[in-house]
């Protein structure tokens, strides 16, 4: 069974806040749910499936109860920041199997208000099998991605200048987004002269820390066609966890090599068919590696591919993250997958900012990498079309 054509994304909402000092995480989830349902033209009574990940306070049980949902399907799969891309796929599967007709996916959090960042070492969580062999050494989000970047540079000659181009493109897009956390256009030198956080990654190679969240509503074809919104149809999806493989680690590629292939096969399209891509940008290196692994360029050529504005809408061959991405716009609760889906939906509907809207955007991708590139991460790829 395939999910191709079996479900539509009818509602999408990105919370406008980037700093939520006076709101609880639960309230943010509720505001996102309401926003996405209003966008779709549906009400809370229509929801019969609910999806959330680790950011949902109290998990699915608390959230279903809190939101007052009456659902017949729940899914709280957590693959880090890529969870919400997985959720769209799982919602499509559930809809195709008749388990629900209106699936609500929410995510939200407030790491910025809580003073968290990617520099603090991970906490020593009990019972996790890998933690005792890692936590003494101080793994963080940034130094894990830095280790992947260092090895990629070693094997393929990728440079800091090339990584900087990913940030430059994000900043060009973010200048048109009034909600973006960072709106100033930067150049390659600005990135290279920003403080070194964990070499080779500078501060401007890192995503923002922001509060907020988002939600999407995935529905059956019958319901989608009864609504007034442009039709965004799910074409294909793939997911794939990747880890250390018992010590045979290779941090020069991501799980996108598998999730991308599965999504393209199911959708029946190739990278050259993709008019717009949301590509997870926790760090600049993440984008370079994913673009290679998804097949937008040869392995090792990602640095060249992203250079010279090739990712800037209206300038380059592959516009990505036209909202400004995690690097400039928003990386709510340090999980970027939801905003990746939302901007792809905007592009397919023709509702992106006119300055960044891709012409004739009929096929788009949202791809995420959640977790650590130099330990364990979950890749997820979603391909959608405008019909």
């Amino acid at each position: 069974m395939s999910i191709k054509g079996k479900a539509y994304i009818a509602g999408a909402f990105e919370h406008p806040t980037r700093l939520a000092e006076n709101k609880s995480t639960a309230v943010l989830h509720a505001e996102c749910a309401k926003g996405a349902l209003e966008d779709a033209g549906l009400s809370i009574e229509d929801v019969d499936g609910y999806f959330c990940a680790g950011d949902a306070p109290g998990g699915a049980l608390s959230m279903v109860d809190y939101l007052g949902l009456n659902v017949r399907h729940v899914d709280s799969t957590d693959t880090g920041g890529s969870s919400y891309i997985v959720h769209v796929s799982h919602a499509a599967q559930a809809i195709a199997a008749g388990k629900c007709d209106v699936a609500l996916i929410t995510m939200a959090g407030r790491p910025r208000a809580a003073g968290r960042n990617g520099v603090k070492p991970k906490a020593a969580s009990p019972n996790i099998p890998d933690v005792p062999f890692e936590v003494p050494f101080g793994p963080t989000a940034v130094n894990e991605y830095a280790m992947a970047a260092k090895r990629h540079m070693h094997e393929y000659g990728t440079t800091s200048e090339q990584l900087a181009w990913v940030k430059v493109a994000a900043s060009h897009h973010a200048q048109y987004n009034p909600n973006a956390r960072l709106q100033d256009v930067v150049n390659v030198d600005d990135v290279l002269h920003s403080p070194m956080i964990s070499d080779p990654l500078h501060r401007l190679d890192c995503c923002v820390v922001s509060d907020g969240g988002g939600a999407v509503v995935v529905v059956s074809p019958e319901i989608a066609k009864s609504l007034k919104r442009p039709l965004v149809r799910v074409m294909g999806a793939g997911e794939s966890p990747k880890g250390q493989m018992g010590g045979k680690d290779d941090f020069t590629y991501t799980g996108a090599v598998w999730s991308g292939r599965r999504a393209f096969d199911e959708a029946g399209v190739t990278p050259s068919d993709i008019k717009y891509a949301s590509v997870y940008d926790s760090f600049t290196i993440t984008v370079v590696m994913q673009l290679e692994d998804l097949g937008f360029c040869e392995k090792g050529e990602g640095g060249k591919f992203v250079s010279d504005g090739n990712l800037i809408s209206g300038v380059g061959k592959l516009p990505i993250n036209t909202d400004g991405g995690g690097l400039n716009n928003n990386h709510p609760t340090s999980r970027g997958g939801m905003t990746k889906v939302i901007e792809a939906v905007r592009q397919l509907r023709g509702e992106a900012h006119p300055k960044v809207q891709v012409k004739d955007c009929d096929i788009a991708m949202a791809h995420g990498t959640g977790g650590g590139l130099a330990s364990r991460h979950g890749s997820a790829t979603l391909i959608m079309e405008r019909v």
Partner: protein
Amino acid sequence: MAATYQPRTMAKPEVYPEHEAYWDAAAEGKLLVKRCEACGEYHHYPRMFCPYCMSEKTKWEETKGTGTIYTYSVMRRGASPYAIAYVTLDEGPSMMTNIVDCDWDEIYIGQKVKTVFKQSGSQDDPGPYVPCFTPL
């Protein structure tokens, strides 16, 4: 920019029952890895069940304590700088570690390194010794 190793407080690892031999050996300056008698493969981090064939016939083996740097990064922000790394042991598997007792500006991918054990935790609350590496 401080590029030379300085001591820092390393978080204490939780000791699970199946890893007591590993931490006991570390306290004596020995690095153990697990090897599977069913499929012959080494693995790290150590498990009771082999991650390649699910066999329970995994046995501790003492390593030579030498390897090469697979990748590393010097964290400049935070309480004190440190160099996180993956070292590929001469026996085969790679492991997360820290590079210590050296000038971090001089280290490089492919460099030969050997184990140095550092005690985790603090003076008031000491933890197990953990395997770090320094250039040969």
